[in-house]
């Protein structure tokens, strides 16, 4: 296959051909063509020679029309999320691990232990196979790290110019053990608000490469699976009232949603917020509020004050909660609203972002 090798090495990220089997993968094309989504031989080759090897041990399927799963004991959590992040590759992650961790974390926020994930791809014609391979490999690694199996999937191809490289949808199922009752409506007056670590890293990492902004150091996404951290928190026996991962809209949006759902007020102390210097700097430069910047590996917990110390200790003992900190309280005042005490001692309302974050003019 000298011709094929020649073509592939011409792409920016050459596919690692070692371990691939004949027939030659994906015919002669180093990029996605419409035929890869047609359900025929090319689709099959894409699955057999790209996706399954890239997913590695995390892949678990017989390529039927549906995955057949054994129902575990306990209640099930079920969640889905779509990923359209641009660019597909960013410091510390790719759209692939984001797609796995995103759904893993959504399941974990109800206290579930994630078990199975589906993966559906919408690929734009002309996307380099090497890029797809890199994304799928990242998904395999992320699934293995989170302890979930990739059990079913789908691939469609859209015309060049009608997509943005790769869109991914993942849906997942997890199991919730008896006695666990974590819901956004359970926040109660007196609850302590805990964040699992420094905020704003994912959003700033994406903005830095999307906008060509440099901040002196490379900011990496905090994208991580939080199911292990959540299981460690549950294992303390504490009654965890609410868990949420502050993704789009950041901590501000998440706390506002919880405050509204539970009918409590939330007060934050600005100087207790773990804002990394680089995030603070980037936000100052762009006129953004770090509380509204996205995270992909952080959670907010609301627990009774009597449980706070135990839960915080368990979080700080886990690799994804080392810098966990108490940032506020649930109060009876201003129900449905989040209010921060500023560094100078004033108060301000912390609002939901309206839509897309818009940098200020000057």
């Amino acid at each position, binding site marked *: 296959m000298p011709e094929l090798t020649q073509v592939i090495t011409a792409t920016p990220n050459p596919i690692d051909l070692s371990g691939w089997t004949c027939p030659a993968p994906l015919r002669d094309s180093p990029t996605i063509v419409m035929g890869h989504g047609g359900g025929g031989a090319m689709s099959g080759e894409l699955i057999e020679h790209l996706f399954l090897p890239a997913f590695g041990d995390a892949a678990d399927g017989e390529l039927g029309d549906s995955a057949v799963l054994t129902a575990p004991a306990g209640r099930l959590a079920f969640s889905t999320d779509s990923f359209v992040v641009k660019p597909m590759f960013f410091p510390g992650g790719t759209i692939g691990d984001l797609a796995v961790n995103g759904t893993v974390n959504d399941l974990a926020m109800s206290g579930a232990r994630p078990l199975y994930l589906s993966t559906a791809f919408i690929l734009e014609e002309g996307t380099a196979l090497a890029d797809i391979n890199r994304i799928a490999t990242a998904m395999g690694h992320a699934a293995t790290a989170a302890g979930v199996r990739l059990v079913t999937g789908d691939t469609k191809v859209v015309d060049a110019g009608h997509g943005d490289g790769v869109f991914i949808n993942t849906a997942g199922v997890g199991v919730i053990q008896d006695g666990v009752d974590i819901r956004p409506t359970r926040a109660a007056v007196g609850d302590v608000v805990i964040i699992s670590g420094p905020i704003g890293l994912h959003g700033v990492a994406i903005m830095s490469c999307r*906008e060509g*902004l440099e901040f002196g150091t490379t900011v990496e996404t905090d994208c991580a699976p939080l199911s292990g951290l959540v299981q460690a928190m549950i294992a303390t026996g504490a009654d965890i009232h609410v868990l949420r991962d502050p993704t789009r809209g950041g901590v501000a949006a998440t706390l506002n949603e919880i405050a509204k759902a539970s009918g409590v007020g939330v007060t934050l102390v600005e*100087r207790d917020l773990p804002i990394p*210097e680089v995030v*603070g*700097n980037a936000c*100052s430069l*762009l*006129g953004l509020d770090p509380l509204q910047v996205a995270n992909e590996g952080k959670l907010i917990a609301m627990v009774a004050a009597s449980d706070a110390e135990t839960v915080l200790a368990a979080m700080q003992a886990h690799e994804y909660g080392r810098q966990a900190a108490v940032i506020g309280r649930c109060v009876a005042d*201003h129900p449905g*609203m989040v*209010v921060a005490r*500023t*560094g*100078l*001692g*004033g*108060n*301000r*309302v912390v*609002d939901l972002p*309206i*839509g897309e*974050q*818009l*940098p*200020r*003019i*000057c």
Partner: protein
Amino acid sequence: MKYLDEFSNPELAATLLERIKSTCTRRWAIMEVCGGQTHSIIRHGIDQLLPDEIEMIHGPGCPVCVTPLEIIDRALAIAASPGVIFCSFGDMLRVPGSSQDLFRIKSNGGDVRVVYSPLDALKIAKENPDRQVVFFGIGFETTAPANAMTVYQAKRLGIANFSLLVSHVLVPPAISAIMESETCRVQAFLAAGHVCSVMGTTEYPPLAEKYKVPIVVTGFEPLDILEGIRLTVRQLESGRHEVENAYPRAVSTDGNPAAKAMLTDVFTRTDRTWRGIGMIHGSGWRLSEKYAEFDAENRFDVRGIRTIESTLCRSGEVLQGLIKPHECAAFGRECTPRNPLGATMVSSEGACAAYYLYRRLELTPVAVHA
């Protein structure tokens, strides 16, 4: 960040507040001119910490807020034209024109792009020689040098498919207009530090003298603002009216000579209409004759677009410091950042949006019982 953290120190802030309190013996009304300062005052709760005697009046220094509806409608018409790539700073996208905003144009297929520097727009023009690329050049003296630079470079490099939709406004004529208004309550000004970092401070002594008002050039971090207020109150209490510089780390008397030379070359003075305030003679810049070919209003047939402002919106009175945002009946009801009636509710530098975003807790009941 160096020069940021140091200027937010709570202990030093408490010391400055104490000094302001001990100096202040009666009521004073001070206008901060710049929207960036308004944002900082409300965001950090500085107005809550000041003695009750000191009233901060929020001035017309938010470029998004004062850009007239007519120019917004012209921008929308250009952005909706086939083949145009319309580039803008982010916070102009949500500013409502007569019937829509740039977001709506974008969702209807218009090629509207957010850029962080006007030079990015020039780069887009270079990369798309078969498209007309227009940059929406608004703002005060602060943003003007970079906008001037794009036109200068476009001419130098022969990038003929680039043009600038200009709506620049200037601080000193606005100060005059405010002081000459019959309803003026302003007794002193915090001048906009970043404007002065470009222009220097020499335009201000004649204003301080003519209107007998203290003018203190002030920065944007909490301690900068408190120091500006402290110097202002000290002047007011001692009956002086001088220009002082409370932002010497960024502002020199002469400003930035290279930027000023560029501005003189590219722009020429013109009358400008300020949204909510009206026409102020000689209060803005347009492209000079030498660069007229890069004026988007010459390139696109939009000069015929004339519009009338909403009567419900009282942003004009807010911008002149005659009412506080929550004293408008529409505040928080018909008018929110999600459905803004006027531009002061759009940009976070606008007084109405700053009040809505950060002060709703105290202000909503006022509005409800009003």
